[in-house]
């Protein structure tokens, strides 16, 4: 009997407070590592070149904040628009707006491009894409990248371009047919120009082939600043319109999210919480596992099986048959009344006499037969068993002597079998 009465039992589970104290270092270390990681991300993010290209509030190299700030200082009211509807609202509110437009992702369809071109009396389009050129100025094509650019040139009738004097080479250009009505400035080679002007029924359109001219990075190079301010600053209102995904027309059937009732998403969340609770409910162990030392146990017949497989793998037919024969001979010797150590010839003669078989035949079974194949081996083994059965039958004794025959002083403990 074991009694532990008197005091409360000693608990091996730490209390909440003790567990908190023990893990305090790691919790603090984890929080510290998290803070360092957040700080590092913030610091690294400030200098990165991310953000939307040519966005009015983007201070990264690809942004256009520098230009917008200068325009604002010059008294131009710059209003940003993310969608056509927004731009339309702003345009309706202002008297004589200028529209800045850049759509490198090609969000607008040709209907909307036409609508865009009708918003303001002056429109500046930066890096026009194929669809825009097709819709507004079908005569204008792409002119490739210019290695060198000349001055304004003789087809230039844009005051802003003439004042700017030149732009840095290396950007895209647009091509004009030789006899077209459009204005081309800063020619490169024969018919490609960095800036193209066209008069549409609805607006004065200026196409600037390369958007990099307006970016924070390059606005100070060559005559970029003069060109940009000249193009964008003639009126008091500037609409800075960069299309976003909201401009993409919604087509096709309503999505799955629109069809599902409002309770589906919260129910899925609830199921996740239920799963979590069930995991805790089923996963929490009722105390630690109990260890137990188990003794070593080996099957005793393993060595016998192993030897049998060795015989089989190396095809040791004769060796295997010898084992069978020696054992049989010893059993036969005791069966016919000879000693276990009787000579083989005596055993052969005695067995032959008892069973009536020819001595040569008995000798073949017990000694002489050499198995050449596995089939032979099985046949020889069967012959041995036949012979043993014949001797048992002839000697008239039971097949197995009583196993529990008590040993006497004269006959010491018999081996089994």
């Amino acid at each position, binding site marked *: 009997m074991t009694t532990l009465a008197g005091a409360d039992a000693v*608990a091996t589970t730490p209390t909440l407070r003790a567990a908190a104290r023990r893990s305090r270092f790691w919790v603090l270390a984890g929080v510290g590592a998290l803070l360092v990681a957040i700080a590092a991300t913030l610091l690294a993010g400030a200098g990165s070149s991310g953000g939307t290209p040519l966005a009015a509030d983007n201070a990264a190299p690809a942004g256009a904040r520098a230009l917008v700030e200068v325009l604002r200082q010059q008294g131009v009211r710059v209003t940003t628009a993310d969608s056509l509807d927004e731009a339309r609202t702003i345009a309706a509110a202002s008297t004589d707006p200028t529209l800045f437009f850049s759509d490198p992702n090609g969000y607008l369809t040709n209907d909307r491009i036409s609508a865009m071109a009708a918003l303001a009396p002056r429109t500046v389009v930066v890096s026009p894409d194929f669809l825009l050129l097709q819709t507004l100025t079908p005569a204008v094509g792409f002119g490739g990248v210019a290695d060198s650019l000349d001055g304004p040139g003789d087809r230039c009738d844009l005051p802003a371009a003439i004042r700017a004097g030149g732009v840095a080479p290396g950007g895209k250009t647009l091509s004009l047919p030789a006899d077209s009505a459009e204005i081309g400035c800063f020619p490169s080679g024969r018919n490609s120009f960095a800036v193209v002007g066209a008069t549409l029924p609805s607006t004065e359109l200026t196409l600037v082939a390369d958007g990099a001219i307006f970016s924070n990075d390059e606005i100070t190079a060559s005559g970029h600043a003069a060109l940009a301010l000249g193009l964008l600053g003639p009126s008091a209102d500037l609409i800075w319109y960069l299309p976003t995904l909201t401009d993409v027309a919604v087509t096709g059937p309503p999505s799955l999210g629109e069809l599902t009732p409002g309770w589906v998403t919260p*129910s899925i969340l*609830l199921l996740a919480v239920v799963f979590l609770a069930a995991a805790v409910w089923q996963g929490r162990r*009722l*105390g630690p596992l109990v260890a137990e030392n188990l003794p070593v146990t080996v099957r005793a017949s393993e060595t016998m099986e192993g030897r049998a497989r060795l015989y089989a793998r190396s095809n040791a037919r004769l060796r295997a048959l010898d084992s069978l024969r020696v054992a049989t001979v010893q059993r036969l010797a005791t069966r016919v009344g000879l000693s276990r150590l009787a000579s083989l010839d005596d055993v052969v003669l005695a067995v032959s006499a008892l069973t009536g078989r020819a001595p040569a035949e008995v000798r073949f079974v017990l000694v002489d037969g050499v198995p050449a194949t596995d089939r032979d081996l099985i046949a020889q083994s069967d012959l041995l068993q036949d012979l043993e059965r014949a001797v048992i039958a002839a000697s008239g004794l039971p097949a197995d002597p009583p196993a*529990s025959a008590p040993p006497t002083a004269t006959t*010491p403990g018999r081996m089994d079998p």
Partner: protein
Amino acid sequence: MTVSGRFTLLIALGVVPIVLLGRSQAAAGGILALWLLLSVGLGLLDLALAGSPRAVRLERRLPARVRLGETVTSLLYVTNSGSRRLRALVRDAWQPSAGAGNNRTPLSVPTGERRLVSLPLTPFRRGERRVDRVTIRSYGPLGLWARQATLEAPGRIRVLPPFNARKHLPSRITRLKELDGRTSVLVRGQGTEFDSLREYVRGDDVRSIDWRATARHNDVVVRTWRPERDRRVVIVIDTGRTSAARIDNETRLDTAFEAALLLAALASKAGDRVDMVAFDRRVRGRVQGAQGAELLSRMVDTLAVIDPELLEMDWAGVPAQVRAITSQRALVVLLTSIDAAGASTGLLAVLPQLTRRHTVVVASVTDPTTVQATHERADREQVYRAAAAERALLDVARVAAAIRQQGADVVTGPPADLPPRLADHYLALKLAGRL
């Protein structure tokens, strides 16, 4: 700390208000948040009202011993010394082989009261079975959240060898009494000594009539005989590497224990003094100088905790062990295994030292599957298997012959037969007066 299935169900039930009242996604989301808040709030309240699983006094009552295969009851008294009612699930963490079955008991203990957790134990392995800890999971009144603590509550129970061979004991004792003069069938031989004279009754062997005594009395008097008494029997059990082998779902060591117990019971009935030592490289257990009922109880107690060791048996140390027990002539029974000749050189080397002074019997278990394998010769694999089995049996026969040549006796048998065969051999030796 943990949660219950009831808490999981409570959260899952939140789907009802969400589906019924959540017209829009925002409304449904709000209901979800409220429901979770309610559930967790109830859980925290429940946790705060749960009785402390640490404010518990534990008291154990265990029987010291149990025979392998029998069932005992382990009693654990749980006293709630805390200030709140304890609604708990109690796990009494017995080792797996203690056979406790389902060891989780639900329990409700009011403050200051005591409840009993009783657990039936049916150990399925010999030796010392232990329990170190009790884990208590205390639920709150709502049964949502629970506190949990593991408490120390050590206990142990000794599982004794089953001694299944005791069923052979009555028949052997009958045979012993036949040797003794107490039965009418008088068996007289070399190993008997004169006991007393008594009156002739019909049926007695006329050859045992003592004519001189008959002449002195007016009645026919016969001599009675009894076997020699007060001989020494020393049982040496090999607990080394080879005793770990499993034959017929029983290790060699367990069979050796059965044989040793049967022999000890019989020999102590016959008036001989039995000593036992379990040995491999050092003594694992020793029983010396015990008599009668005490002998058997001490033997099972000692043998209970002995397991096979992965060591080679140190046969050179055995004669010294026997010498330490007795200097008289004794029957030395070596319970070991006879395998290949190479593995038995140690045994063969020390046998002459033992046989010079004592009568030595080497008892070993044979594997019935090996004998069975010699008869199955249907295909190629089986013929090779039969050949390997015959080779193993020949090896055993060679070692046995060598042992006999050294002057010792050999007793072998499959696990079920070895104990009675050893007992029979003992009776035969006693009859022959070779003790």
